[in-house]
């Protein structure tokens, strides 16, 4: 489904990603881990062209991302993204947050968009909040709304950039539960996370990035119990 070949990204002279190649297949859940500043967010953001790669190619469903600037909206509509800091639209109600993009970007009728949005809110356990504004929600609730907002576009792929890092500890679980649910439903997911438990339990594969290099990848059990590289060992020693 996603095929990344020789991806490089530079900010000025700072090479943030070097020569990353990997493929992610449909329905796979991939966790990206690595020290802070290693390029995890940048990699994720390249997958929906929030960052433009310096060189290399990214194919999604056989369509080359970097050469199709024109269809960028269409491609992004198939890729949901969840941010560390939620980025809900503060001037719209929860329901409007969910219906806005389907109506504006896909031309879906209001009644239909609202019906689907209500189903999604039910799924993330926030039905009673549909008329609330984001500022009145807790962090965990905000992130669940943000996930529902991304799902409202009916994407084929979901990207998560440290979705629980900005949350109070007691709210992490409610968000991870929603994500586990989503993984079970067969969604293709790429998740940057510091939640090693989640990576171990839910991910089909772990990518370990360090200094912009894809140092190691493998099955979670394999990776966490027998890391092959020194760098991965060092990192795991620090976080586990």
């Amino acid at each position: 489904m996603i095929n990344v070949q020789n991806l490089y990204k530079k900010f000025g002279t700072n090479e943030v990603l070097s020569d990353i190649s990997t493929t992610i297949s449909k329905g796979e859940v991939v966790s990206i881990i690595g020290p802070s500043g290693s390029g995890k967010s940048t990699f994720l953001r390249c997958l929906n062209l929030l960052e433009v790669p310096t060189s290399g190619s990214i194919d999604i469903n056989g369509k080359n991302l970097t050469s199709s600037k024109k269809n960028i909206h269409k491609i992004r509509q198939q890729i949901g993204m969840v941010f560390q800091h939620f980025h809900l639209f503060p001037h719209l109600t929860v329901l409007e947050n969910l219906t806005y993009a389907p109506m504006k970007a896909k031309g879906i009728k209001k009644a239909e968009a609202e019906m689907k949005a209500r189903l999604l809110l039910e799924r993330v356990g926030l039905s009673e909040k549909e008329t609330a504004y984001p500022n009145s929600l807790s962090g965990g609730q905000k992130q669940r709304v943000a996930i529902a907002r991304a799902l409202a576009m009916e994407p084929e792929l979901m990207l998560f950039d440290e979705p629980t890092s900005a949350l109070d500890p007691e709210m992490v679980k409610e968000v991870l539960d929603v994500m586990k649910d989503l993984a079970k439903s067969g969604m293709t997911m790429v998740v940057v996370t510091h939640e090693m438990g989640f990576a171990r339990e839910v991910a089909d594969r772990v990518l370990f990035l360090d200094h912009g290099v894809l140092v190691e990848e493998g099955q979670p059990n394999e990776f966490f119990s027998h890391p092959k590289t020194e760098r991965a060992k060092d990192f795991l020693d620090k976080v586990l």
Partner: protein
Amino acid sequence: MNLDFSQIVPYIPFMLEGIWATLKFVFFAIILGSILGTILALFKIGSIIPLRWFADAYTSIFRGTPLILQLMIIYYSTPQLTGYDISAFLSAILAFGLNSSAYISEIIRAGIQAVDKGQMEAAQALGVPYRAMMKDIILPQALKNILPALMNEFITLTKESAIVSTIGYLDLMRRAQVVGSDLFRNFEPLLFVGLIYWCMVMGLTMIGRVFERRLKQSD
């Protein structure tokens, strides 16, 4: 002190008509200034270099020269250059509209840039087209932040509108001068229209407060 307000009584209807005369062109100037100002602000933050350059040059010129000069140039040079006998009313709308658009564009630009970058990224990630994103997501949030500055600009424009008296437009200010020279007493009519300007500005301030409260709904 020999103040005698009784003498201006017969002239009060004449001066009150000036409210309408002033409001009329101030209203159109604010509309013109807001529309142009928004467009210029979008030019300034956009990626098309010539448009950015144009908007910056425009702002620099209209902020860098006196408003009264701009007004006179429009009023006196339009007939000379084009043969079109432009009315004082139209000149006033143009001068004030074009001038305030320069200030408004700066206010809006700063407002847009103050909106969290994450908002734009979230909209982009959802595949929302640029125009819709600006109109529905970015500008409404920018507007909320800049409303006080914007109201300030409208208030300034309302007060500075008195400059049109210099091209003979019968606004509030001009009417006070006319009455003054009729009566050989200037202080009373000036004081009278001063009070009216103050009331108009208070009205605008109140309208601004109502808007602000409405936009604050989501807090």
